[in-house]
């Protein structure tokens, strides 16, 4: 029991993969001993659900053990792995990681229930992939070593590619190839950046190390203390260059605007479980990487890039909205919509103040919830009709009232209607954007109207209007399993909308620590940095918008 408490985070991370391994081993045993083909699919399914449910319970236990009053990382667990190379197993969580862990651990069982009996092609492999994916995501969110992060990150990409490529829709191979192509390009960029940082850290600390902060009992320099030059030194060692590398690497997953080419194909073709999970294991992880590694390690470059990044966020918001409006495929509408949401998140992150960044983290959670709900519902619909074309639907509120209500709720949450969860995150991000630059805030408000256009369009075309197609007349409403999935999404959507403070209380200390870390790297900051970090600093009033 004591060991469990001591290694709680590790147990949490490894639980899904261990479940997968156990099921595999049992399968082997069954094959040897009883001459079965493997474990029955039912056992795999139940085992996978059980494993992910246990993981979810462990995540809840972690939530209880986490002390929101303390700043810094908690539940830190450390194990030397390749000490000579500085590659440690080093995990720990702050409020942001905690929420991401909770979210992942919550979404996986829900996604499994959502696709319950519908996986026909090699179902055992499917469950194996999902479980490995979960461990990868949990590990990445808890990693305090950049290499470990990279390792877990990679162990998400491959199962995700398989999920799309094997269990996806008609054009799955193309979509999977695209996803993997983009992802490997991003990984390469990330790897390059990591190596540069590795070398810089070695030059300065004399030991190979990629720990985020010095690990317990280690003399080596954490990468948070690595000095990354702003102007001096080799061009490839400067903050600006590293920023670009990391930005491409993480931005590919977010996705930032010109790097989003994979998103709609992947989300449209992915099986329902993949679509539900991608917002957290892909998109949120990219944004998390920006927040965890890029901002504190490269503060000067990040601060200098603020105008560009605010622009990128705004363009993502507007461009994603426009693309969503032009789609005729229900899943692609939601996919581009989620790109627009991530644009808003980037806007919040790079407003570099408490409100914007807290809102951005909260919005990552919210986005995963309402986008997950939308994809789950659309998945139920597509499973019934076998098509994703908008024109094939219409008037479904009559045969499927529960579905209609669920879709409406998820759409309204997504377009930011109070008291649903989207509103709080959006309001905080806007607040941050207004503090960074009021005109960017005004632009984001205007861009937000587009969300109402495409979501209402989706809702009206699917659910309202006359029942024109005879195929839709006999549609069966959601059954109890599907209702369970929808309820599982609706409860947190309502809860966060009405009472977000428990989450905010955990995000905010982490965000303010991050802002302090950025400020603390004082030796390299450009003169305007304290000003850009806004809320904390004394000298915060920019000339021209002070009291007149």
């Amino acid at each position, binding site marked *: 029991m004591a060991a469990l408490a001591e290694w709680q985070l590790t147990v949490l991370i490894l639980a899904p993969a261990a479940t997968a391994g156990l099921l595999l081993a049992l399968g082997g045993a069954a094959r040897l001993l009883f001459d079965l083909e493997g474990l029955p699919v039912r056992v795999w399914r139940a085992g996978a659900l059980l494993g992910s449910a246990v993981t979810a319970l462990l995540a809840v236990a972690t939530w209880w053990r986490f002390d929101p009053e303390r700043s810094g990382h908690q539940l830190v667990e450390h194990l030397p792995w390749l000490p000579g190379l500085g590659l440690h197993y080093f995990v720990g969580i702050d409020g942001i990681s905690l929420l991401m862990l909770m979210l992942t651990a919550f979404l996986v069982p829900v996604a499994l229930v959502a696709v319950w009996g519908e996986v026909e092609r090699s179902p055992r492999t499917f469950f194996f992939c999902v479980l490995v994916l979960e461990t990868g995501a949990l590990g990445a969110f808890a990693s305090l070593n950049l290499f470990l992060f990279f390792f877990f990150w990679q162990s998400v990409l491959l199962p995700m590619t398989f999920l799309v490529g094997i269990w996806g829709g008609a054009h799955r191979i193309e979509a999977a190839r695209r996803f993997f192509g983009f992802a490997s390009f991003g990984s390469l960029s990330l790897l390059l950046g990591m190596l540069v940082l590795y070398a810089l850290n070695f030059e300065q600390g004399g030991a190979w190390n990629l720990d985020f902060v010095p690990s317990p009992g280690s003399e080596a320099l954490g990468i948070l203390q690595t000095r990354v030059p702003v102007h001096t030194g080799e061009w490839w060692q400067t903050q600006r260059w590293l920023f670009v590398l990391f930005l491409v690497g993480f931005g590919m997953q977010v996705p930032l605007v*010109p790097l989003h*080419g994979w998103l709609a194909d992947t989300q449209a073709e992915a099986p329902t479980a993949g679509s539900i999970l991608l917002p957290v294991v892909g998109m949120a992880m990219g944004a998390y990487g920006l927040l965890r590694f890029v901002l504190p390690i490269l503060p000067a470059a990040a601060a200098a890039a603020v105008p560009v990044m605010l622009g990128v966020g705004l363009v993502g918001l507007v461009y994603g909205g*426009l*693309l969503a*409006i*032009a789609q005729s495929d229900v899943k692609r509408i939601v996919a581009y919509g989620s790109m627009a949401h991530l644009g808003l998140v980037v806007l919040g992150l790079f407003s570099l*103040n*408490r*409100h914007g960044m807290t*809102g951005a983290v909260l919005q990552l959670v919210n986005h995963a919830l309402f986008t997950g709900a939308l994809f789950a519902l659309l998945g139920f619909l597509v499973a019934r009709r076998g098509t994703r074309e908008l024109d094939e639907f219409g*008037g479904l*509120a*009559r045969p499927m*009232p*529960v579905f209609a*209500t669920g879709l409406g709720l998820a759409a309204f949450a997504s*377009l930011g*209607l*109070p*008291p649903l969860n989207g*509103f*709080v995150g959006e*309001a*905080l991000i*806007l*607040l941050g954007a*207004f503090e960074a630059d*009021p*005109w960017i*805030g*005004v632009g984001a*408000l*205007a861009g*937000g*109207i587009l969300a*109402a*256009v495409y979501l*209402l*369009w989706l809702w*009206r075309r699917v*659910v*309202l*209007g*006359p*029942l024109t197609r005879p195929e839709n007349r006999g549609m069966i409403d959601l059954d109890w399993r599907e209702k369970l999935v929808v309820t599982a999404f609706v409860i947190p959507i309502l809860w966060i909308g*009405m*009472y*977000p*403070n428990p989450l*905010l209380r955990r995000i*905010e200390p982490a965000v303010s620590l991050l802002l302090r870390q950025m400020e603390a790297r004082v030796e390299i900051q450009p003169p305007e940095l304290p000003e850009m970090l*806004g*809320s*904390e600093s004394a000298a915060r*009033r920019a000339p*021209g*918008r*002070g*009291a*007149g």
Partner: protein
Amino acid sequence: MVSEAVEVLWLRVIPGLPLLAALVIGLPAALFRARPSRGLAAGVSILAVAGSLGAAVLAFARLVGEESPRQLVDLVSTWVGVGVGRAIFSADLALCFDSLTAVLVLCIALLALLVLVYSVGYLEAMGRDDGGVARYFCYLDLAIASLLLLVMADNLLVLVAGWQGAAAFSALLVGFWYSEEPNARAANTSFLVGRIGDAGLLGATMLLFWATSEAGRPTVTLRTLAEHFDEISGLTLEAPGGGVWPLPVVVAVLLLLAAGSRCAQFPLQVWLPRATAAPAPAGAYLHGAALVGSGVYLACRLWYVLAAAPGVSHAAAWIGAATLLLAAVFAVAQTDLKKVLAYATVAQLGLVFLALGSGAWSAALYHLVTQSFVLPLLFLAAGAVMVSLRGREDMREMGGIRSKLPRVHASTWVGVLALSGVPPLSGFFSRDAVLAAVWGSELAGAPVLWGLAVAGTGVLTFALFRMLFLVFLGPTRMPPERRMTLRDPSDRLVYPMYLLWPLAMFGWLVGPSQFWGDLLVGGVQDSDSLARFVADAVPQTAVSAASGAWQRVGLHVLACLLGAAVAVQLYLRRPDLRLRLTERLGWLTRRLVERPFVDASYEHLVVRPLWRGARFAARRGIEEGLLGRVVLGGGARSLRFLAERVLRRAHDGLAQTAMVAALAGVVFAVALLLAGEG
């Protein structure tokens, strides 16, 4: 410091009860398909709203007994809180009940009660159950709760929540009979136009917070804002293209956007006439009074922002006057009964906007309050007509049904007379208060504004009488078999209207201006009791008993009489004249009715460009063309080129190629080493 307000813990009951009713009705229906009967759903709703009204009356009584500034507050729970010290953003779910709130809460709750009673009969008579009774009462209760939350909000974020909630449930009610495509579209339009206003309100909230935190007092609490607005009114924003914008101007523009979209002001009026797709009682309540009134509430609540931006409020006055005239003209051209009323509503709101723009806050409020009972009366009467005609709304197929529907006929008369401003009824006094304020205002072009407004009221009067005559009087234009089936609506539809009669006729007694107070029997001191009552929230309109008061009143009455007289002449006495006239002006009415040019310009200026832009971005232009074909395709091609032409060569399996490659490698390594030495 914020002046200490009295804490009253049961204020939450007022918006809470309708919310609770909605949950009681909606949850079982959503989860277990346990649909409550019409009687049960209505009973629960009516009880809840009656409870709200009772609590509101108690709160009102409590408020009257308080010292000035009279405020009751109730902190329900924390909501959003981020930051510390000077950057704290904190918005709690807190309610505040002050004089302005009291007036609106009482109106909203009282009207809601009457409308709910009417709804029972209406839904029954329409016979289009759709399994939607629970849905109807659930949405309506939620709309009522949202509106109550809106007017009772203690801070801007709660206000935003109520604001958006009310719009959403209103849109859901517009699309209540969703199986008909036009209704679904109308719901969409009304939500989208509302969304523009939502963005404005949210932007104003954010800017006010930004400004207060710049000034070292971060807050979104309305009471604090009202007290300390002068500290931030000097702030400026730097425009992107150079130039400096005073903060109040930007905030006022955003607020105007919000209030304008809510009050259906030009050019955002498109949604209200379409919103008539809502069931009649819901439309009467939301689109005739309560929902659209929330825009006026917003302007009154934040009057100090508008007052600090005189240019913007001046624009509001012009927008209001233009809307009034335009909507009145549109009302004349309609053939759909409910659309006439919708445009009449828009026109009345134009007048209110004119008052707001001229700084006559209390006059605007006064007019809003009196109209809140008149317009719903007319909407309910129209609903009763439709029920009798089995859902038909086209006035060209009505006429001469006075004898069949005497009670509805009488109600419509009361409404029309009160709305068109016949002197002893309420429309006259409140409108006169607005017109007097414009008459006496210092605005540039005030006489023109006044003239526009009077002309608009004249045209509106004509439109209303035209509607009355077309529907009830004259020869019938109905086919005989439908005439036979015509039935008088049930008592449940009629009695709520009767209850509205006195309110519609004598609602003006809540506070006529002193000018009229002096003329009342014996002369009433301080007759403008409404304005006095809300004076600690909204400044009183100072109407000078300036010269020419009687000319002003005379011209106003004359315009209305003229409108009525023309209607009598054209629709009762000389139908032949009307026929000739419509023949001549047919092209004009067609423009106004079949494809109102405003709608058409929306289509051309907003919808199509957006649609084209989206398609361009997605297809040929950027996404598939530039990013897809050029960047991605180009990248893929060059990779393939590399693989096929270069790398494949190296792996052709021939020994000599491998030798050459190995040799090249060695040379390269040696060169690298030598370079390192050097």
